[in-house]
């Protein structure tokens, strides 16, 4: 897991190109006759939201080496913070985002303290339990007045400002893109600096990092909090774009899909988070057609559910491409750039 990109000054031209490309996408809607264009925009929003959630998880797992299976809980916390503020406080949607981030950051800090004493499998176990318990906690009767209990909370989709001339989904896409760009930029800068080096040193060799004078407890809890905060913003965005929150959408499965995005995109890779986010949504949306194709090709009697595809992919990637798609690209590039030297030998 090298971090050569972290030594570069500023954001690379490639990254700029990707963001500009993503920003231009909604404009296709003005020339396209496709009636389902708004649906594609909705998919784009989901992809960006998942990318942000995976970014949060990657900061923790990929860069700091703390395994969490409980990020669905922080995603839920962010979503519910936004929903409650919008529904009961009458807050505008944009004002709820920073609040959701702070609430989740504090929750992450609170969970990060006990997590300090846990390593590897044990931390995975504790966060796994958190993910399983969360839907039940959200349904709890005493807070049902706020959370809507099993039924959840229905919200109103925000209207785009008139002057933009955008449709609601195009506008929300830009909202997600804006948040994603800010967060990726923040994480990029965080990792390039002194804190980032400390965070990664803890991952690579905790004890050596401690001997070098790095305050392990502080960096680990802050990494946990920041990670939870970022995932919480993703949750808040999902509440705004879906305009609905319900306890049963925040199950262990959600945590697993973040993990899928992380592993497929690439552990400890920032571009990998975007790839992973897009991948999760693509598989979810095309599960039916993949299933039909497999039924036809392999003469299966049953539908193949998305979760089976996820599972098999996770296993396969652990064997052939442990550093994900982004890692695969990096390896191809390394092979390509060193070809001259290899031939000379």
């Amino acid at each position, binding site marked *: 897991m090298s971090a050569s990109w972290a030594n570069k000054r500023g954001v690379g031209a490639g990254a700029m190109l990707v963001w500009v490309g993503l920003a231009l996408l909604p404009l296709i809607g003005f020339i396209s006759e496709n009636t389902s264009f708004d649906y594609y925009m909705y998919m784009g929003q989901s992809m960006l939201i998942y990318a942000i959630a995976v970014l949060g998880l990657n900061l923790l797992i990929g860069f700091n080496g703390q395994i969490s299976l409980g990020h669905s809980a922080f995603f839920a916390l962010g979503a519910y913070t936004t929903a409650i503020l919008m529904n009961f406080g009458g807050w505008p949607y944009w004002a709820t985002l920073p609040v959701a981030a702070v609430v989740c950051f504090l929750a992450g800090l609170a969970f990060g303290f006990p997590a300090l004493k846990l390593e590897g499998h044990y931390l995975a176990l504790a966060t796994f339990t958190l993910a399983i318990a969360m839907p039940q906690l959200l349904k709890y009767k005493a807070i049902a007045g706020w959370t809507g209990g099993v039924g959840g909370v229905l919200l109103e989709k925000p209207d785009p400002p008139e002057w933009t001339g955008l449709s609601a989904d195009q506008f929300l896409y830009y909202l997600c893109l804006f948040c994603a760009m800010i967060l990726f930029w923040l994480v990029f800068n965080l990792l390039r600096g002194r804190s980032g080096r400390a965070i990664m040193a803890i991952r690579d060799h905790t004890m050596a990092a401690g001997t070098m004078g790095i305050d392990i407890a502080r960096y680990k809890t802050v990494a946990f909090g920041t990670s939870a905060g970022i995932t919480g913003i993703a949750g808040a965005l999902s509440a705004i774009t879906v305009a609905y929150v319900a306890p049963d959408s925040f199950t262990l499965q959600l945590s697993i899909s973040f993990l899928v995005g992380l592993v497929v995109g690439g552990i400890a890779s920032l571009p990998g988070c975007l790839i992973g986010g897009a991948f999760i949504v693509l598989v979810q949306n095309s599960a039916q057609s993949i299933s039909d194709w497999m039924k036809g090709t392999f003469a299966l009697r049953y*539908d193949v559910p998305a979760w089976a595809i996820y599972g098999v992919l996770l296993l396969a990637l*652990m064997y052939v491409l442990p550093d994900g798609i982004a890692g695969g690209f990096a390896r191809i590039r390394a092979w390509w750039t060193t070809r001259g030297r290899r031939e000379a030998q």
Partner: protein
Amino acid sequence: MDFFIQQIASGLTSGAIYACVALGLVMIYVSTDHINFAQGEMAMFATYLAWAMINAGVPYWVAFGLTIAVAFFGGLLIQRVILKPLEHAPVLALVVCFIALLSIFNAIAGMIWSYTIKQFPSPFPSHDLFGNGLVSVQQLGVVGVTLVMLGFLTVFFRFTTLGLAMRAAAQNPASARLMGVRVAWMLALGWGLAAAIGAIAGMLVAPIVFLDPNMMNGILVYGFASALVGGIGNPLGAVAGGFIVGVLENLVGSYVIGNELKLSFALVVVVGVLLLKPAGLFGRVIVRRV
């Protein structure tokens, strides 16, 4: 008072099931140091196999035995085929692998048998033991099966050569290998046993909670809690932990926090034990050499 006794009895019943799940986890933990997140889904899948057999007209106890055998070989196969190549992989790769197994089993069960809940027969009659409405034969049967299994395991590990070889492989793989123990196969055997024990847990719990692909989610969490309370490397501790957690869960659920927050109770137990007494009640404190 009657209500209290009923709660204790049903607590011991669920405790017996948690003990089985915890035992399965401990089997894998002592031999490989891994926490198997797929333990619950493996048990669920085995229970579906039993259900399919019983539906096809196989008598209950025959189906029970066959399922245990199939689960045993299934567990063996998973270790040999899927986990063996990842022997020296980092923790993250293993956790990802277990999570992958979890989703695969869950998805395949849902795909073959659908997500509608099914009734699973119980071999024990549900009427009262003494006719006073306190303890049912069903509850006694569940506890009985667990204790029989525990006795069988104790005999196996204490008095058979194979059991001794397994203990040796878990305690000191290098020396065991020098003594001619096939350590890799002992690990596979541990997985087989864990899967078989899990299958028993699944078949015991299915008549109580009904059979569906997500039935083991909560129970696995209690299994974790039980294994941790007892000390995750200790089989007897796991069983004791199971009963402790089962009874506590029922008492706390009915007297303190209500049934809706029972899972959060498991969360509190897990985090609490890991923080305050990571070795559990009966576990050894692990000292790491630097």
